[in-house]
């Protein structure tokens, strides 16, 4: 390699520029494909970006901490974005105050089902404690779920991917389950998808029906709070 070129490489690997550019570019590619696929949940832009960046790291022999050192500026924004979830939650809340009781009970039932059934199935099949902790908050939106998993001994990065897979599953197969159970009320359909499949389910619900979208968005915000309060409690009760 000629002298100036290797100097450029040294500069790039020491500054956050390369990791940040790679992150944004990979996400753009993912979003482009997502739009081309008519916003189909299986072509998830985050999953595409993760695969692309993972491949680049493997091929270039870059260690993950080196990449993350640059990409952490994007990662940092997760905290403020979580706080900002209060804004759509507030907007929805004013609209649906009348169904408060139905919403509260459904939220509690859904949130507990999500955590307990995941823990039960995974531990029956011999998952490790670390995997269980990463799995328990999977129905909450990713930034919240990662914050819940870490103090319980989970792996935040595994949680992020499990959350995305949960969203894809819920968005792709959830409507089928609702059809089979003959649940036709748009409020109930939206709320169920938002509770189980957070933002990925909500973006799907918004495409189908406005009422379903509003209830899904509400459920996503409420379940972020419910999961943050319930999962550590459930974890302490089960694993002491």
């Amino acid at each position, binding site marked *: 390699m000629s002298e100036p070129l290797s100097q450029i490489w040294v500069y790039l690997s020491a500054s956050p520029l390369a990791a940040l550019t790679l992150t944004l570019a990979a996400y753009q590619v993912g979003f482009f494909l997502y739009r081309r696929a008519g916003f189909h949940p299986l072509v998830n832009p985050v999953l595409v970006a993760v695969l692309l960046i993972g491949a680049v790291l493997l091929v270039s022999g870059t260690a993950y901490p080196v990449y993350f050192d640059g990409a952490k500026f994007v990662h940092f924004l997760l905290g403020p974005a979580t706080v900002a979830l209060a804004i759509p939650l507030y907007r929805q809340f004013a609209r649906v105050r009348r169904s408060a009781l139905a*919403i509260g009970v459904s939220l509690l039932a859904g949130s507990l089902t999500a955590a307990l059934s995941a823990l039960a199935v995974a531990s029956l099949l*011999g998952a490790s404690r670390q995997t269980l902790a990463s799995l328990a908050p999977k129905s909450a939106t990713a930034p919240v779920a990662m914050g819940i998993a870490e103090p319980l001994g989970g792996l935040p990065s595994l949680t992020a991917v499990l959350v995305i897979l949960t969203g894809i599953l819920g968005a792709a197969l959830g409507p089928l389950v609702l059809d089979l159970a003959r649940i036709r009320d748009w409020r109930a359909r939206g709320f169920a998808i938002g509770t189980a499949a957070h933002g990925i389910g909500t973006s799907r619900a918004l495409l189908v029906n406005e009422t379903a979208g509003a209830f899904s968005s509400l459920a996503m915000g409420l379940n*972020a*709070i419910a999961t943050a309060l319930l999962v550590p409690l459930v974890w302490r009760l089960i694993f002491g």
Partner: protein
Amino acid sequence: MIGALTLILCCQLAGELAVTASGLPVPGPVLGMILLFLLLAVRGGVGEDLGRVGDALLKNLALLFVPAGVGVVVHLGLIGREGLAITAALVVSTLLTVLVTGLVMSRLARREADGPSGPEAGAP
């Protein structure tokens, strides 16, 4: 814009401080979110500036968890070993959650709609 961003960061900071001081097992940003919600309820509205900043952050929420998601390449071995347990848990739990939430909500929402029409029934 800077004012709205400062408000959001202040809520997060207050949440993180409360978690550190109390030892509550809840993520600091979630407490910050509850705090911002209460502030909005007191203020009685979101406001244009905060609305714009919040929407900009949330419109690109999915991008923000890419860096953490990439970390999964470090754990490919673990996923391979426990792949069956993870897959089964994800499928069963996600579909069961949709079913349970949908059933409870449709029963309760229908009862509310059919119930005695109180003074609230005609309210917007």
